[in-house]
């Protein structure tokens, strides 16, 4: 009997790569795909894997491994592909000999992303075939199939997954690893050097291989037609397939495993048989537009939402409008009338005192991407701009120039960036900030160095190796100093008063001042010290501690006191002591060790 396991989509992708004889896997961590490379560590004897410093580098390491003859996988979240788009667009011109797969995690509904871009568009743009799995078994199978087709057609391929597939679990049949070794690297500029005149012929190479794959799509086994005898045909892929099956199991459906290029000939033939073709897909009308481009009459987006996830109830609604389903069985998702609960900085998070200081300082703060992006949420509402990773450095420079020109040259401006983001794409931003200024402009950059990529679950950064004592020191401070910055201060933000003075003073100085905060991530380094408690007889109920938004804090009624006083849930407090330091009357003290 074959062995089965329950795996998430992400775990299945790693497993598929292992079974396919994969050699090198690289990534930059980003929800929803983080777990792929984390799982890959289980196969470290066979597969080299790394979280690279950013997606561009991850792709480039992957390109090298692939050119060198190893089956290669590179994973990232959807916006990560934007970061590696430059090498990607040229790389896909190469006729590759070893299988290459780019995994991109799209996020319909933006569960944890800044936008909802549909990377099928980028896949087509880069001339890559695209696979779109519907559950964990598909995810594993498509990795193996995708790598096979990659080699057969000498093309890099894309596995497009969505958050739902990444995190859903279902049973997966496990297979054995089949070792796989491609040819050794043989220098051949026409294959590997993307410069005219070599690139001219590759325009034809790319076109031809997509055409061949379009032909092959017609009998590709992962494109499955299920016939139930209906007069309409639904074409779909991904999670939409199963959500559709939930509400409408008895309609003919063409489940696409490869969504680009499409089995155009087959669908053309089918369209003669059916009264209507209905496309169900999340986000952009990608399949729909492809069909229409080829003159195939179909309906789609006008009946289904252009944004968010297409849950069963959304699909049902569209099918009722289309007359495929007579009446609705599912009620609309009820309106949430319970108090909202947004994310917040963890208990003991080293970002908390910094944002408390910035809020009180009432300065213009430019944000970046990481846990500290939550500084834009209530009750902080400190960040005034937030675009993409590493962008704080460019934005702060441009805005400084604008402020100065508008007569606001006395107003401070502060940027925040984490160490993960610093290494990801902050380095060129720092370099650019340094040169081309007069040296008179007042800019303060705070590097929130918590020694980890915290938002995605604590993957290492250049600084973590230092923290973890792995002997590979790469210090943010040394790097910035080498760039020519001299106004640099290291600050312990758990020493609240000193940190406050350092930050506020820096915002008043001319030139670029850099503050590096040094406390590590409470979650990644599992920090837990003796909790603090409130003495209600001293507490004046002023809520200064409450304003720090630390999760264990709340106001409550104590027996014998009329007014509500602050309290600390000992189950949640990790003992950072920031609340005690902001308390104006000394009502918060560390608990006596109870033994």
């Amino acid at each position: 009997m074959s062995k089965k396991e329950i795996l998430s989509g992400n775990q299945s992708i790693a497993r598929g790569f292992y079974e396919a004889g994969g050699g090198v896997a690289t990534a930059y961590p980003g929800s929803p795909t983080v777990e792929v490379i984390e799982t890959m560590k289980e196969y470290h004897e066979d597969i080299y894997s790394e979280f690279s410093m950013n997606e561009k580098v991850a792709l480039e390491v992957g390109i090298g491994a692939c050119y060198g003859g190893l089956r290669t996988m590179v994973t990232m979240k959807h916006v990560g592909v934007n970061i590696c788009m430059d090498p990607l667009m040229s790389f896909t011109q190469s006729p590759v000999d070893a299988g290459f797969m780019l995994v991109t995690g799209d996020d319909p509904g933006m569960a944890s992303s800044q936008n909802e871009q549909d990377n099928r568009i980028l896949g087509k743009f880069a001339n890559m075939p695209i696979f779109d799995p519907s559950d964990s078994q598909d995810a594993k199978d498509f990795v193996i199939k995708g790598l096979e087709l990659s080699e057969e057609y000498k093309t890099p391929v894309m596995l497009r997954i969505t958050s739902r597939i990444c995190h859903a679990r279902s049973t997966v049949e496990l297979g054995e690893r089949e070792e796989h070794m491609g040819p050794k690297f043989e220098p051949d500029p026409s294959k590997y050097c993307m410069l005219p005149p070599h690139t001219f012929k590759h325009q034809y190479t790319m076109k031809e291989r997509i055409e061949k794959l379009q032909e092959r799509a017609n009998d590709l086994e992962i494109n499955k037609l299920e016939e139930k005898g209906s007069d309409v045909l639904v074409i779909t892929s991904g999670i939409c397939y199963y959500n559709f099956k939930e509400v409408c199991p008895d309609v003919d459906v063409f489940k696409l495993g490869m969504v680009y290029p499409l089995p155009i000939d087959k669908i053309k033939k089918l369209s003669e048989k059916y009264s209507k073709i209905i496309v169900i897909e999340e986000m952009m009308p990608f399949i729909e537009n492809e069909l229409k481009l080829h003159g195939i009459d179909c309906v789609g987006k006008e009946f289904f939402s252009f944004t968010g996830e297409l849950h069963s109830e959304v699909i049902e609604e569209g099918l009722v409008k289309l007359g495929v389903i007579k009446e609705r069985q599912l009620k609309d998702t009820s309106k949430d009338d319970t108090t909202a609960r947004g994310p917040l900085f963890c208990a003991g998070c080293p970002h908390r005192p910094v944002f408390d200081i910035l809020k009180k300082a009432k300065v213009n703060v430019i944000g970046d991407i990481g846990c500290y992006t939550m500084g834009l949420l209530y009750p902080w509402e400190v960040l005034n701009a937030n675009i993409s990773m590493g962008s704080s450095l460019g934005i702060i420079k441009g805005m400084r120039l604008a402020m100065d020109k508008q007569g606001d040259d006395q107003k401070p401006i502060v940027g925040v960036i984490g160490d993960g983001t610093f290494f990801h794409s902050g380095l060129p931003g720092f370099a650019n900030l340094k040169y081309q200024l007069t040296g008179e402009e007042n800019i303060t950059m705070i590097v929130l160095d918590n020694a980890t990529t915290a938002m995605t679950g604590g993957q290492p950064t250049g600084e973590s190796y230092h923290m973890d004592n792995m002997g590979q020191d790469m210090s943010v401070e040394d790097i910035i100093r080498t760039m020519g910055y001299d106004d640099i201060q290291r600050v312990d933000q758990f020493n609240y008063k000193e940190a406050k003075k350092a930050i506020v003073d820096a915002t008043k100085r001319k030139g670029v001042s850099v503050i590096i905060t040094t406390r590590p991530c409470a979650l990644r380094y599992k920090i837990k010290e003796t909790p603090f408690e409130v003495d209600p007889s001293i507490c004046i109920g002023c809520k200064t501690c409450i304003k720090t938004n630390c999760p264990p804090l709340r106001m409550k009624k104590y027996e014998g006191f009329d007014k509500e006083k602050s309290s600390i849930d000992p189950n949640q407090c990790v003992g950072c002591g920031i609340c005690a330091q902001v308390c104006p009357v000394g009502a918060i003290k560390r608990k006596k060790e109870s033994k």
Partner: protein
Amino acid sequence: MVNTNIILAGVGGQGLVMTTKIIAEAAYLSGLDVKTNDVVGLSQRGGKVWGSVRLGEKVFSPNVRPGEVDILLGFEALEGRRFRKELKKDSSVAIVNKYQMVPTLVQQGKEEYATDIEEELNKYAGKLIYEDFTQKAVELGNKAAANIVLLGACSVYVKDIPEEKWVESIVKSVPPKFVELNKEAFALGRKLAK
């Protein structure tokens, strides 16, 4: 066989993903088809998180359709309340932790923490088990075991999974040094639910 639909709701960091895994594994060990769905990412930082498990003969989507929840596992009181309208009328069970974690809006005095949780859950659930599972876990020696006490209570209402498969799944899923604690937590949960 009709599918059993379970929703887990709580706050980031409470161990929902782990619990989802244990239920899925127990279902699989019992020969059932199973699909789960976790919402993770940004919400792990103290935000609302939820997941679903569907088990039975054949499961298509990992998502539970609205109004079709058989069992609601509320890891935190307010989060249990949030999903009450998703419950199947009359036949459903809500197992909700009385333990409170205050959302920012309540902490900052902008909104009140709901005082009608028990009453509201009773309106929608066929049966309600409303206990401070966190306190029970603290008494056992580790507040982190609250999810397994809840799971024990849940196990009583999943007829298709025998008790020993639950235990087998827990043993497979938790670190060895916590096995005994978790077995105790599970047994306590079963007792509370009966």
